[in-house]
């Protein structure tokens, strides 16, 4: 049985990858005379025609600033912007649309919580708990906050098996813990973390839990209420949507009590020369003209994924991952990080070759049109804990196929023949 993530059930319906692929214009591109094999989805995903068209249509038909305009375009733009918010809310089962805040990306969402909720609630002697497998964006804001507040930053360790060491959860998350911030799926190891359990422990000690869902919301059905997440964030560009737009979900009461993050137009109810009053949620957190076009296009990306059904998306990636793990494991000289059991992980596979540096591998594969990511994947401490300084990473999405994984494997073989005598 495969793990399908919180709140999902297998629908059984297979979606047709060929039909999906036809929606992605970039997949017809040739790279160095080869068809593009795009395996860099954990960095950002490609966009279907529907999402691209949503942006053009907006600018061709509706473009206007939102909120408070009395003219037709402004009313239409505001409606479309809010409809997109409601779609996202439904997608993650948020109880109310206004608990969905538009940000630029996951990084901004994380910084927002650190600079507002945590800045207000974390004090000297308190601690903040994150995991050893966080993205830099979920490490550095907390290092800074801890330093500023004289609080302690604690890491929940991960074993060499790529799994969080849950045995230590009670001693790590204790009565002085104010916030636990953890990635749902590691962008390096692929590990699916038991976030509901972490949430549970956090709530036991009166802490809040923030879930970095940058690598989960795009790939599985995520239900913020089922997890009991206090905050959860993700980026549209990693889920078929445009760059420049992300989401912070938060429980209404928490968001309502938080100080604002940035100040300016739209987040303000009333200003005098002396003072200002904040607008209601979600606007309190949306200063200045928002990224209207990309928010609307994010709604369309959500429609696209909803239409595919997230259980199918997950199942498709599970199959690709299992297949890729099989084939890569069979190669000589390859070390794969993360859980061995494909059922415990998402579609992200990081690996090293004992004779080829990841960058040389990346350059060589690119000559064959195969795009993988190489480097530290914005998770330097984790990468170093595996005693390497860089790794290659292949990551999958709805349009990838087993044939593409075959291309990756044969590309690695060719590269090995090239570099290794």
């Amino acid at each position, binding site marked *: 049985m495969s793990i399908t993530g919180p709140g999902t059930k297998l629908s059984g319906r297979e979606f047709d990858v060929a039909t999906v692929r036809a929606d992605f214009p970039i997949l017809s591109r040739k790279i160095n005379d080869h068809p593009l094999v795009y395996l860099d989805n954990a960095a950002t995903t490609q966009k279907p025609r529907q999402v691209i068209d949503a942006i053009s249509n907006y600018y061709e038909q509706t473009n206007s600033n939102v909120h408070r305009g009395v003219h037709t375009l402004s009313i239409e733009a505001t409606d479309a912007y809010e409809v997109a918010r409601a779609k996202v809310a439904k997608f993650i089962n948020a109880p109310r649309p206004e608990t969905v805040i538009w940000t630029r990306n996951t990084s901004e969402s994380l910084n927002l919580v650190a600079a507002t909720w945590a800045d207000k609630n974390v004090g000297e002697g308190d601690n903040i708990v994150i995991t050893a497998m966080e993205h830099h964006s979920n490490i550095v804001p907390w290092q800074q906050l801890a330093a500023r507040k004289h609080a302690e930053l604690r890491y929940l360790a991960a074993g060499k098996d790529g799994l969080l060491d849950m045995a230590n959860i009670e001693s790590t998350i204790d009565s002085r813990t104010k916030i636990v911030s953890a990635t749902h799926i590691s962008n390096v190891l692929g590990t699916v973390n038991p976030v509901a359990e972490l949430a549970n422990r956090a709530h036991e000690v009166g802490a809040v839990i923030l879930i970095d869902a940058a690598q989960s919301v795009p790939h599985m059905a995520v239900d913020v209420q089922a997890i009991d997440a206090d905050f959860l964030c993700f980026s549209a560009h990693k889920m078929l949507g445009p760059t420049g737009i992300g989401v912070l979900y938060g429980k209404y009461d928490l968001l309502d009590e938080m100080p604002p993050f940035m100040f300016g137009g739209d987040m303000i109810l009333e200003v005098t020369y002396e003072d200002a009053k904040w607008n209601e949620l979600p606007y309190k957190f949306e200063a200045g003209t928002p990224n209207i076009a990309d928010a609307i296009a994010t709604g369309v990306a959500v429609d696209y994924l909803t239409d595919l059904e997230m259980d199918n998306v997950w199942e498709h990636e599970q199959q690709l991952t299992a297949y890729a793990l099989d084939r890569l494991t069979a190669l000589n000289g390859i070390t794969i990080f993360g859980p061995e059991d494909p059922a415990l992980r998402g579609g992200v596979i990081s690996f090293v070759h004992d004779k080829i540096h990841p960058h*040389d591998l990346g350059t060589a594969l690119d000559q064959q049109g195969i795009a993988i990511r190489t480097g*530290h994947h914005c998770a330097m401490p984790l990468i170093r804990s595996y005693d390497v300084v*860089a790794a290659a990473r292949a990551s999958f999405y709805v349009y990838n196929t087993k044939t593409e994984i075959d291309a990756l494997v044969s590309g690695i073989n060719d590269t090995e023949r090239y570099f290794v005598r």
Partner: protein
Amino acid sequence: MMGNTSGSGSLGELDDLYEAIILDHYRNPRNTDPVDSPDIDLEVNNPFCGDEFQIQMKVENDAVTAVGITGRGCAISQASASLLAELVEGKKSGEVRASVSSFRRLLQGEELSEEERDVLGDIEALGGVRKFPIRIKCALLSWVGLDDALKEHLAK
């Protein structure tokens, strides 16, 4: 057999980047022995790539009498470090610094003089990196580090 003589097949322009001489230095780096009581001993690294090298030199009478470079990195940064180590051994510090400057200009795509090309010799093979601009940093890493260290040493 060496990769590029066997033909890189579907690997396209890879031979432009990894010329035979580069693969040779990558596989068999020169001057990797540590230097006894070095006058210059520094670490250079590029955290983005994870490349890191230790550069040790003895400088006597304004000449590099011993050099050792070890570390890890991609084929380009490793070959480049090895070629550098080979080049500087026995050279006057002024000559070393001039060569670094020629090398920089090579990677920037500038024309080198006959004389400069003679000095660089095999190293010109690294000029293929120009076609892969994001790899230029890899080629430069040890060179820039060594040059800075030498400059600092001379200023003492």
